[in-house]
């Protein structure tokens, strides 16, 4: 491997079982390098979300290792978890914006709570809003924004403190096809600017059109890992 033995993200023999004895992940081995764009596809319940939640340590693997930046996230001290999360931007299907704050303030929130200096906040928030194409909507509140605009705000919030990894769980799940393409173009731009992107999705058209790496999952296993892949192999 030219990029070193360890990728940016590496999962080694990872299993995840929930207390109700549901096994969400089975012997997952996965390596993602810096700058990759990876689609994680599969039916509902295949383990996509669980896989993503392990990366920013919302969940901890039952067995195996999850390495991010070469560090086993399960071994992180409790006080180091926030630092890991500052290197990973997260985007959800339901945006998770704060309804009582404007677009600008939602983005600024991520910097405020990580104790960024006021000067930085003033500088970076407008820059990021411009990047996601919402320069003119900064004062609008979430209920005044369309779904696509809300997702752009969420993306702005995820990237505002400059994470190297962006994980997205069904980011286009609530959006119509045109709006979805807008979001995908934005993600692609971010990827070209150096962000590593891992996106769980059901959006077959998008996956097939973009020709990125595809990790297909079913019943908690990786059943296919294909560079420039498609959503599903047609069984002829």
């Amino acid at each position: 491997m030219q990029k070193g033995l360890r990728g940016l993200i590496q999962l080694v023999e990872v299993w995840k079982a929930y207390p109700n004895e549901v096994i969400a992940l089975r012997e997952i081995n996965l390596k993602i390098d810096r700058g990759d764009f990876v689609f994680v596809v599969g039916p509902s319940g295949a383990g996509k979300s669980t896989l993503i939640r392990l990366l920013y340590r919302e969940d901890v693997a039952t067995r195996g290792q999850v390495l991010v930046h070469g560090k086993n996230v399960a071994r992180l001290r409790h006080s180091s978890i926030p630092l890991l999360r500052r290197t990973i931007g997260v985007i959800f299907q339901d945006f998770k914006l704060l309804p009582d704050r404007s677009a600008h303030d939602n983005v600024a929130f991520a910097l405020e709570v990580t104790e960024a200096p006021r000067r930085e906040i003033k500088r970076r928030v407008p820059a990021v809003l411009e990047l996601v194409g919402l320069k003119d909507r900064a004062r609008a509140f979430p209920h005044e924004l369309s779904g696509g605009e809300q997702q752009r705000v969420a993306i702005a919030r995820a990237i505002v403190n400059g994470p190297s990894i962006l994980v997205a769980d069904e980011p286009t799940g609530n959006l119509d096809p045109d709006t979805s393409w807008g979001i995908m173009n934005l993600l692609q731009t971010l990827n070209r600017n150096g962000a590593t992107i891992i996106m769980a999705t059901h959006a077959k058209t998008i996956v097939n059109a973009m020709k990125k790496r595809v990790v297909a999952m079913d019943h908690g296993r990786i059943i296919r890992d294909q560079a420039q892949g498609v959503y599903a192999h047609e069984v002829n």
Partner: protein
Amino acid sequence: MRSTSLAFGVRQSLRGLRQNALMSLASALTVALSLLVAGLFGLIIINLGHLATLAERQVEVTVFLNDSLPDQGVRAVEAQLKAMPGVTQVDFVSKDEALNRLKAVFANDKDLLAEVEQQNPLYRSFEVHTDQPEHIQPTAEAAGKLNGVVKVNYKQDLIDRLFRVTRAIRVAGLVIMVVLALAMVMIISNTIRITVFARRHEIGIMKLVGATDGFIRWPFVCEGMVLGLAGAAFAAVALWAGYSWAWGAVQRGLPFIPLLPGQPLLTGLTVLIGGSGVVVGAVGSALSLRRFLRV
């Protein structure tokens, strides 16, 4: 913590107090009542302790002398008393002095005083102080055998009882204070839990974008401390006014009960109550956050 973060925390906690105004007021008042009761107990305990100490320091053994005893005999008794082990001080009380003291206590009972004044029935006496309470009883017994002594009084029983009562009240007060403290912590914790619940999405996002636990906790702890402090302020004002009034009333009506003056007692108590309010508030809100901060 940066000053901007400090400001952020204060802003957040004010927002919480406003959104939850009625509940906040209710819990501040509950804290106020609890601290008021605790403060009352504190005042009672401190004053009883003061009274008991005074009583102990007062006349320990009173030796009454036969009226027929000549002055020479009186001096002999005094010398013998002074020579007894543990005796530190021997004061002579004349018949006139004894009468004056009686007058002070029964100032309103003119008839009685008029009668007594005509023919003073009071004995001359020695008031004997000892260095330790254990010396009181032997001294009293020895004094009783001296020539010219009619009677010996000592108030050890009374003092013992006073100390026992003080101790009992102190224990009861302490138990009540602990119970009240727990209740206050629970009430504040419950109030903050409502704020935490109302802001759970916000907390979730804070954690997601990498805010530290300390940063997330701080506005809520701040809110709890404000509640505790507000309650403490209510309680302090009430205690201050109440005690000043009671002290004045006792001075006028029952002047022989030596209550401690308001200062520096009330200032000390206010500091203590304020501190308790802040601690109780901080502990209460930290408790309500534990579940939410666990990853």
